[in-house]
């Protein structure tokens, strides 16, 4: 029940109410629109920092001196609201004695009294509230701005309903114009297929085991742009340790990630090249050293040997060393040439044609071993490559397959080409003696690395093949089982 309904006011009662009005810590005022008479409560003065009588109590003084000019319109609109009994609220700034303009909430009410229409009003200082509101709005604006600049959105999953809420920036990253509500599954469907399960798993782990996560994923926006994003989720737990909310950020890290990926691949490439060069220098030094050591050894022996036939024998070894030295120099030339030939023009080559050239050059070896060679170049009949390289690669692999045939069976060699995306693969499979990958896998393509007791193994072929393949940006991979066979998979381009 309200005051006005329950009271029948006596004169004493009215005086009492007037005292209450004066003492209450609110600015209460009354304005007769006909007589222009104005009454302000003591609280009105004190709200503005004055004592009663210190300032002129008039409508004009209030309107001209106290009310901030910008808020006049708002105040007039609220005060002269046509609706009887309504209490329109306006937020206005009034000049205080000590603290400059402060925010007040103004509530007004119209009432028709015997001596004309009267407007009553109450002023409450809401400065602190208003300032914090403004600050909050600024902070929100700033945080949105920061999110926009950093391309970071924020999101929340309420575990009770599995409802998903997004900040505005989330929609910008999703490239969605309208801020539609989305389910968790719908949001996950924006990620590239190979990442959907990953994301589902980490979200489930966060839900069930309160495990936070921080992962990088490929994401396809509503406009079909595929970008790298970072998703970080932190479970918020209740008193019982149950996850009630997952809160997280979502960031577009595409440019950073792509730069990182490019950088990483150049580092890997440089690293590989560096290792190869180091290995190369080591091998050259080792190989030349062993020849020159032998040469010195034989020359000394030659001097010590007394018998003519001994000397002849020693001299024949010196000749062999001289030949080995020339061969080593030849290998070095070949490796240097690989590097210099990179810039040679690539041509569109027929696998069939090149292979037939190679096979006819090796026909004596093929015939002698009764080798069966099956080729299938239909998967990719042609490739843009440096002709000398392709010939050399095919020749080395074919020579190897024949050289390391199994002693108990004729060689069967299957050669095929494949196109996967933009990559061209050459697959070379034999049924030879195979190689122990566990023991020799990492040395297989090393220079002068030989693994079989085979007098014509020089350890140069695969070394050169790998250099040629890698010089043109490809790669070579090998699978092998001892006594079963070997399979080389060469990614040419």
């Amino acid at each position: 029940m309200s005051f006005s309904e329950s009271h029948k006011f006596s004169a004493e009662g009215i005086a009492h109410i007037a005292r209450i009005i004066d003492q209450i810590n609110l600015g209460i005022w009354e304005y007769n629109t006909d007589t222009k008479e104005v009454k302000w409560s003591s609280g009105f003065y004190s709200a503005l920092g004055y004592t009663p009588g210190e300032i002129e109590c008039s409508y004009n003084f209030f309107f001209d001196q106290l009310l901030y000019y910008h808020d006049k319109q708002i105040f007039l609109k609220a005060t002269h609201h046509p609706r009887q009994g309504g209490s329109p609220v306006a937020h206005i700034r009034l000049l205080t004695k000590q603290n400059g303009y402060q925010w007040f909430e103004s509530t007004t009410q119209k009432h028709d009294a015997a001596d004309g229409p009267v407007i009553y009003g109450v002023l409450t200082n809401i400065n602190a509230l208003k300032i914090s509101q403004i600050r909050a709005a600024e902070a929100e604006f700033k945080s949105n701005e920061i999110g926009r600049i950093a391309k970071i959105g924020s999101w929340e999953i309420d575990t009770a309903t599995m409802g998903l809420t997004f900040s505005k920036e989330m929609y910008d990253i999703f490239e969605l114009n309208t801020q539609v509500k989305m389910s968790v599954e719908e949001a996950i469907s924006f990620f590239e297929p190979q990442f959907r399960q990953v994301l589902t798993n980490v979200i489930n782990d966060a839900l069930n085991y309160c495990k936070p996560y921080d992962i990088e994923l490929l994401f396809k926006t509503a406009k079909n742009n595929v970008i790298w994003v970072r998703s970080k989720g932190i479970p918020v737990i209740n008193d019982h340790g149950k996850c009630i909310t997952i809160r997280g950020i979502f960031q577009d890290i595409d440019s950073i990630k792509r730069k990182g990926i490019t950088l990483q691949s150049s580092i890997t490439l440089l690293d590989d090249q560096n290792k190869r060069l180091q290995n190369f220098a080591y091998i050259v030094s080792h190989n030349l050293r062993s020849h020159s050591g032998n040469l010195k050894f034989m020359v000394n022996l030659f001097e010590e040997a007394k018998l003519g036939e001994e000397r002849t024998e020693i001299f024949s070894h010196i000749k062999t060393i001289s030949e080995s030295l020339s061969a080593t120099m030849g290998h070095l030339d070949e490796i240097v040439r690989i590097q210099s030939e990179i810039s040679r023009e690539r041509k569109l080559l027929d696998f069939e044609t090149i292979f037939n050239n190679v096979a006819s050059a090796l026909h004596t070896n093929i015939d002698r071993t009764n080798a069966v060679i099956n080729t299938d170049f239909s998967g990719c009949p042609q490739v843009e490559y440096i002709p000398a390289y392709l010939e050399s690669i095919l020749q080395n692999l074919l020579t190897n397959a024949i050289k390391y045939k199994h002693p108990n069976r004729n060689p069967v060699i299957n050669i095929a080409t494949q196109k996967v995306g933009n990559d061209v693969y050459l697959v070379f499979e034999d049924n030879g003696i195979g190689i122990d990958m566990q023991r020799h896998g990492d040395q297989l393509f090393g220079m002068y690395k030989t693994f079989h007791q085979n007098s014509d193994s020089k350890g140069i072929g695969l070394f050169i093949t790998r250099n040629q393949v890698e010089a043109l940006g490809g790669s070579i991979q090998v699978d092998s089982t001892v006594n079963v066979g070997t399979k080389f998979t060469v990614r040419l381009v």
Partner: protein
Amino acid sequence: MNTENKNVTAGIVDDDEIFTYGFKKLTTIKGLFDKTLNFSNGKQAIDFLKDPQNAHRLPDVLFVDINMPVMNGWEFNDAFEEIKSQLGKNILIYNISSSIDLEDIKRAKNNPLIADYLLKPIDELYLAEIARSLQNPTDRRRYN
């Protein structure tokens, strides 16, 4: 040379035929060893040592190259360690190589099984010293 010297058999384990030839020739000319066996890789040497039929003709010293096909010097060292206790003879092992890679040198020197690491071309004087110490068993104590 002292008449009390015992007979010394050496073994060379290396796939380099020229080096093997030179080694045998040199030791013959210098009269360093009474007999020199040769094996073209680690596996051949291990197979020979393991065979009980060869128990009476085991070498006193083996010079084992590092770079060899089938079974290289490192693998030989490991295999030798396993059969060492079953051999009726204490056999000295030297690693030999053209490799001046510090890692290789350290690896051999850190192996208590290996008497030393010799760089190719082999130092004649050092070889003679090794032969002398084997011929005169009192000097051998330091290896036992």
